[in-house]
């Protein structure tokens, strides 16, 4: 019997431990291929979901003894597999002499088998049976790839729940012109130079930084906090976005420290907790007055819901107990989790510090009043430093974004000038 990989559907002989196509561990989980119709079945299925062939016992062919000379010709020795047996069972009763009804232990019957016994008289088939004919029951053929494909398709339609991917489009780079090698190297070098720019010329253009309204509002809100006011930071970004969000988090923590706020931090993933510890440690060192790390709650709907109403037994108070709540997140989905599981039940609208990538998708929540403001880390960090009277890392490194804009502008011009048909493009990355 064959087995199939549940990931890529590749077929393998039974006993194969690893899929040779995708590397999936077949010893742990695999599908069973029906030997008759090729449909895919779960390991626990006793019969094929499509043709009802028993899958538990090996479908060894049941070879019947030769028929007498009056029967079909030599080539017509019927070979009935367990699957055909099951199919016959489903189709209805068969003549008493049929091998399909023989128990497995009696595979060699003493009485010669006549497939037409008992039927010739009522159906008037004696003459036809006596004459040689071409209609023979051939040996069962192993299904080919085409049959497997059809069987899979049918099995999917018949047995599997409809996937919600209808209308989805696959994205391939087929036909997309690649960046020529020389240009690619040049752009990479320019990108590196842009990243190094603030370290070579720190503070370049810092006098031009003008905080926008939402940033000023956050800075003012922190400035208005009374000393000792409880503030909750919900930390849900890890090292991937540390470059973008760390400067903003550091600037916010610095201002909260200045206001002598009582800051508590709860993380929504292990890596977020590590990142929060790192930023706090950089700002506060080992001072006892620093923010309290409440721990980490596994993210997901349940995690957000737990945060909404708190879990005092494990040291997490309800979010409504805080004077200010700030959510630092790297994904729009996390902020959506807040809107759907926390804001709905607690009515708390937080300030959201998020990656610039996720910022646009969160504007509707600001307009519906579910979030107080959404600030993109890349631009908000230097603006917040200016608005809160600090001039630290973010202001000093903001000029790098000017360099990035320049590189992207060059890239856009290059793409417009060297589109398809204007020369060889392939061979690059």
């Amino acid at each position, binding site marked *: 019997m064959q087995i199939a990989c549940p990931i890529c559907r590749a077929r393998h002989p039974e006993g194969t431990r690893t899929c040779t196509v995708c590397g999936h561990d077949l010893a742990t989980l695999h599908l069973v291929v029906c030997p008759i119709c090729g449909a895919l079945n779960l390991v626990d299925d006793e019969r094929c979901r499509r043709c009802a062939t028993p899958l538990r016992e090996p479908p060894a062919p049941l070879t019947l003894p030769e028929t007498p000379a009056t029967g079909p010709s030599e080539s017509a020795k019927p070979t009935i597999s367990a699957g055909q047996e099951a199919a016959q069972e489903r189709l209805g009763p068969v003549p008493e002499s049929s091998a399909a009804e023989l128990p497995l232990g009696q595979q060699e019957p003493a009485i010669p088998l006549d497939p037409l016994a008992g039927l010739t008289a009522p159906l008037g088939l004696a003459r036809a049976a006596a004459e040689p004919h071409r209609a023979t029951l051939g040996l069962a053929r192993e299904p080919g790839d085409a049959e497997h494909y059809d069987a899979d398709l049918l099995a999917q339609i018949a047995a599997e729940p409809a996937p919600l991917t209808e209308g989805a489009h696959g994205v391939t780079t087929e036909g997309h012109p690649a960046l020529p090698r020389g240009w690619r190297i040049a752009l990479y070098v320019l990108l590196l130079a842009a990243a*190094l720019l603030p370290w070579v010329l720190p503070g370049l253009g810092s006098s031009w930084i003008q905080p926008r309204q939402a940033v000023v509002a956050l800075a003012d809100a922190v400035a208005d906090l009374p000393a000792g006011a409880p503030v909750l930071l919900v930390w849900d970004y890890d090292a991937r976005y540390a470059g973008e969000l760390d400067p903003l988090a550091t600037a916010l923590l610095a201002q909260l420290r200045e206001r002598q706020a009582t800051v508590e931090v709860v993380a929504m993933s292990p890596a977020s907790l590590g990142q929060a510890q790192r930023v706090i440690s950089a700002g506060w060192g080992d001072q006892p007055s620093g923010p309290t790390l409440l721990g980490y709650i596994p993210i997901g709907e349940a995690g957000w819901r737990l945060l909404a109403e708190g879990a005092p037994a494990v040291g997490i108070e309800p979010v409504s107990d805080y004077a200010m709540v700030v959510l630092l997140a790297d994904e729009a989905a996390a902020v959506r989790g807040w*809107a759907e599981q926390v804001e709905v039940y607690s009515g708390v609208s937080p300030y959201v510090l998020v990656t*610039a990538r996720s910022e646009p998708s969160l504007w509707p929540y600001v307009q*519906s009043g579910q979030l107080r403001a959404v600030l993109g880390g890349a631009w908000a960090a230097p603006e917040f430093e200016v608005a809160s009277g600090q001039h630290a890392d973010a202001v000093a490194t903001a000029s790098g974004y000017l360099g*990035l804009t320049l590189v992207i502008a060059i890239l856009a011009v290059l793409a417009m000038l060297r589109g398809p048909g204007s020369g060889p493009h392939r061979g690059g990355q």
Partner: protein
Amino acid sequence: MSGWAPSNSLLTMGGTLVALLVTLAVLSRVFGENVFSRIAQYVFVGVAAGYAVGLAWLHVLWPRLQLLLADPAGRWPTAVFMILGVLLLVRGVRPSSPLGDAPVSILLGVGAGLALVGGVRGTLAPQVVSAVSGPQTAGQPGWLGIATLVTMALATVFTLAAFHYQRRSTGLASYVDRIVQELGLIGRRLIMLALGAALAGAWLAFFAALQGRVGFVYRVIANLAAGKGLWP
């Protein structure tokens, strides 16, 4: 340019060296797949998984286990979920084991139930209400307020039309379907505009990460060159 407070100089210097080496190993991937970047990736997966296990134990399981041990009768639901959790571990060894069905079913039920209510009460209802009532345009000149209202409403309608799928229909329904399909074409273009905004944000995020790593390498090398030692 803040960094770690060097509480223990040897550990910090050793750590700086390790961080420098792994940063260079990963960034060397830009020249193509190589053994150093692969080593860094294996180490990363191991450290990330080990760290997650440690924190899951320290911050989620251990505190609840302590509460359970202190008051077993009053905390019996925690005991039930702990037992279910242990059954779930069987799935880590044998994913097809039926022993893990119950805990996974509870996780799914809780997640789906919360997502269903949250989706309706937290996104669908507020967004539809906000779309109908229009955005806050106070403080804007009259013509700009109207332009904002109209633009937002049209953008939402066109975008929703882009998500529209319908079976072949006849009569009046087919006309409506055709109109919605045409609107959907405009909606797809509009989604491209919004994706452009997200792409700009992604460039900024990736670049900020690059700037952070390049800055770290620059500072370490500058400190070394100035004879200050291995400090970030």
